[in-house]
C-alpha cells in the first residue's frame, strides 16, 4: 500500500526534531576539565547568563569543575527543621511571620504564586552570615577593560572593614536567636574607613535595615573633605559612587530589601557557578586580570526577575540566580530601563572550613561561604571593578571572620554615625 506524503513529512519532521534535540543536548554538554573560552563558548551557551556570556567573549576563562554538594551549617539545618514549619508569608508577600532562625521556606512549589517572594526571602535569611561578619583589609581596582586584555586601573581603593551585624535569626553568638531589639533591626552594616586613595581617605558608609517592610533603610555616607554626613535615600543604594562600578544593593548579588522589588519567578535552569575556588586570597588571571581563574561547576538555580518599586532606582531590572541547594547567588545580570544589558555582579566563592592552612587561622565547625573576590562589569562602558577580599597585600590575612562577635570588633557602637565620623578623622 502506498504511503501518504503526510507520513513522510511527519517522519522527516520527527527526525529533524530529534536531531535538533541531540545537537542542542551535545552543545550543552560540558565535561569536567573542559577549558571554555570565546572560541568554544557555544558549549556553555545554555549554562550561562547573557552577562556571563559577555565576559567570556571578552576573555574571561572558565574551567569546568566537578559539582560538589554544599553542606549547610549544622545549626542552620537544625533551626530550619525546628522553625520552618511555623513560618508564614503574608498574602502580599512582604512580611515573614513567626520567623525565628534557619531557612524560612525550605519547600518551594514552583506553581505557588508566591514562589518568587519565598525564594527571595530565603536568600534574605541565607546562612552565608547568620550572626555577624567582619571583612578586613580588602582592596579594589576600577578601570576600563580591554577585550582579552587587562584592566587599566583608574583608581585603587583600600578598605579597612566591611561589617554586618544581624539582629535576628542568630545561631552562634549570644544573645540568640534575637538580640534585644527595640528598634526592630534586621541588620546593621558598615563599610569604613576607606584608606586609599588619598582623596577619599576616611570616607565611609553605614546603614540599618529593619525587619518591618514598611521602614526604609537608614543610609549614611561620611565625606571627611566636606566634614559632612550625608543621608542617602533607599534608591541611592543603587548608585555607583566614586567612579567605581559597584552599588550597595548589588553586594553579594542582591542586598536590597526584599519588599522593595517586584519579583517574578522565571523558572529553573542549570548554571555554571564558582563555589569551590581553589585560591584564597584570589588569584587573578595573568592576562585578563579582571577575571578570576577558577573551576565553575554546573548547578541548578532559580531564575528571578526583580524590578524596583522605587522610581529613582538606577536599574531597570535585575535577573538574579539563586542556587536551589546552596541558597546563594553565583552572579546576577542587571539591565537598564530600556532592557539593555548593563552590568553583572560575579561572586568568586569558596566553601571551606578555614580561609587557608596556617597557624592561628580560625577553623569553623562547618564549611563557610568565603568570597575571595567579586567582579562587577559595566558592559556598556566596558569598565569593571574587581575586589580582592582580602587584599594580597596583607599576607596571612584571613579576610572573612564569621560569627566572632566582639572578638572581631562587632559591637553595637561600631554601627553608629559617631563611630563612622571618628574613624574618618
Amino acid at each position, binding site marked *: 500500500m502506498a504511503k501518504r506524503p503526510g507520513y513522510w513529512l511527519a517522519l522527516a519532521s520527527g527526525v529533524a526534531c530529534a536531531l*535538533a534535540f541531540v545537537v542542542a543536548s551535545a552543545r550543552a554538554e560540558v565535561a569536567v576539565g573542559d577549558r571554555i573560552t570565546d572560541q568554544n563558548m557555544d558549549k556553555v551557551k545554555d549554562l550561562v547568563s547573557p552577562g556571563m556570556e559577555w565576559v567570556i567573549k571578552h576573555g574571561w576563562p572558565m574551567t569546568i569543575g566537578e559539582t560538589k*554538594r*554544599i*553542606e549547610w551549617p549544622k545549626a542552620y539545618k537544625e533551626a530550619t527543621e525546628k522553625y520552618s514549619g511555623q513560618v508564614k508569608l503574608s498574602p502580599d508577600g512582604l512580611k515573614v511571620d513567626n520567623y525565628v532562625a534557619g531557612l524560612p521556606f525550605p519547600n518551594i512549589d514552583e506553581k505557588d504564586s508566591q514562589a518568587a517572594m519565598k525564594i527571595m526571602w530565603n536568600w534574605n535569611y541565607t546562612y552565608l552570615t547568620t550572626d555577624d561578619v567582619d571583612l578586613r583589609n580588602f582592596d579594589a581596582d576600577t578601570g576600563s577593560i580591554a577585550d582579552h586584555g587587562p584592566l587599566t586601573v583608574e583608581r585603587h581603593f583600600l578598605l579597612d572593614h566591611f561589617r554586618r551585624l544581624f539582629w535576628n535569626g542568630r545561631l552562634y553568638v549570644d544573645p540568640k536567636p534575637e538580640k534585644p531589639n527595640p528598634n526592630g533591626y534586621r541588620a546593621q552594616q558598615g563599610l569604613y574607613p576607606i584608606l586609599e586613595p588619598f582623596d577619599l581617605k576616611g570616607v565611609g558608609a553605614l546603614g540599618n535595615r529593619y525587619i518591618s517592610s514598611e521602614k526604609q533603610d537608614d543610609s549614611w555616607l561620611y565625606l571627611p573633605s566636606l566634614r559632612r554626613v550625608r543621608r542617602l535615600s533607599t534608591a541611592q543604594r543603587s548608585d555607583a559612587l566614586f567612579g567605581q562600578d559597584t552599588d550597595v544593593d548589588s553586594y553579594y548579588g542582591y542586598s536590597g530589601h526584599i519588599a522593595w522589588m517586584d519579583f517574578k519567578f522565571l523558572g529553573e535552569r542549570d548554571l555554571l557557578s564558582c563555589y569551590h575556588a581553589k585560591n584564597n586570597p584570589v588569584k587573578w588571571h595573568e592576562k585578563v586580570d579582571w577575571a578570576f581563574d577558577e573551576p565553575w561547576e554546573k548547578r541548578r538555580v532559580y531564575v528571578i526577575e526583580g524590578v524596583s518599586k522605587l522610581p529613582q532606582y538606577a536599574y531597570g531590572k535585575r535577573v538574579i540566580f539563586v542556587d536551589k*541547594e546552596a541558597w546563594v547567588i553565583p552572579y546576577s545580570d542587571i539591565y*537598564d530601563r*530600556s532592557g539593555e*544589558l548593563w552590568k553583572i555582579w560575579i561572586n568568586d566563592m569558596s566553601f571551606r572550613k578555614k580561609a587557608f592552612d596556617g597557624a592561628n587561622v580560625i577553623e569553623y565547625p562547618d564549611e563557610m561561604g568565603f568570597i575571595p573576590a567579586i567582579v562587577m562589569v559595566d558592559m556598556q562602558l566596558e569598565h569593571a571593578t574587581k575586589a580582592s577580599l582580602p587584599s594580597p597585600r596583607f599576607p596571612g590575612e584571613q579576610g572573612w571572620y564569621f560569627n566572632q562577635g566582639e572578638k572581631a570588633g562587632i559591637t553595637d557602637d561600631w554601627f553608629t554615625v559617631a563611630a563612622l565620623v571618628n574613624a574618618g578623622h
Partner: protein
Amino acid sequence: MRWRQVIFLYAVVAVLGAEYWVFERRAPPAAETLPARPRLVPVAPGAVREVRVSRGGRTVVSRREAAGWAVVEPSDAPIPADLVAAFANALADAEEIATIDRADADPRSYGLDDRAARVEVTSETGEHVLLTIGDANPTGTAVYARRPGTSEVVLIGRNIRYYEDLIFQALSPQRAPATEGDAPIAG
C-alpha cells in the same frame, strides 16, 4: 552722612535693582532633555492581550487572563506564568535604542532571516503588531529587531532575547538536576 552720600547710595541700589530686573530675573533656560525613545510596540503594557512567539519551528502562545498570564499553546507547557508575563512586559516596555539600518538591509547580517524569532503581539482592541528579533549586536548588550513591512533595523534591549531563550529552554525536556537539591531540607 551727607545728603549727597545718601543720594549716591540710592543711585547704587537703583542700578543694582535695574540690573537684577533686566538680566538676573529671567528664568534659567530649561535643561536640555533627550527626546523620548520610540516604543517598539505601540501598545500600552497593560493593553497586551496575547503574545505569540515562534522560533525554530516551535510556537508558544500566551494570553492574559483574569488570574494573570497563562500559556495556551502548547497546552501544559512547563513555562512559568511569571516568565510569560515578564516577556510580555519587556516587549511592551521595549524602546528602540537606535535605528541601525534604514535601507533594505540584508536580514542575514542581523540574524533577521529564518533564524530569527517571530513575535506577534495582540492588543486588547485586537490590533496586531508583528516583530522579528534577531542576533545580539557586537557589544552584546542589545539585539536587532524589525517590524515586517518596514525596512528599518532597530536595536532593542538584550533582555527580551534572554526571556525568549528561557521560554524555549523551558519547552526542552528537563535535564537531570545538577545537584541533589530536591530534598525538603537540602544541605
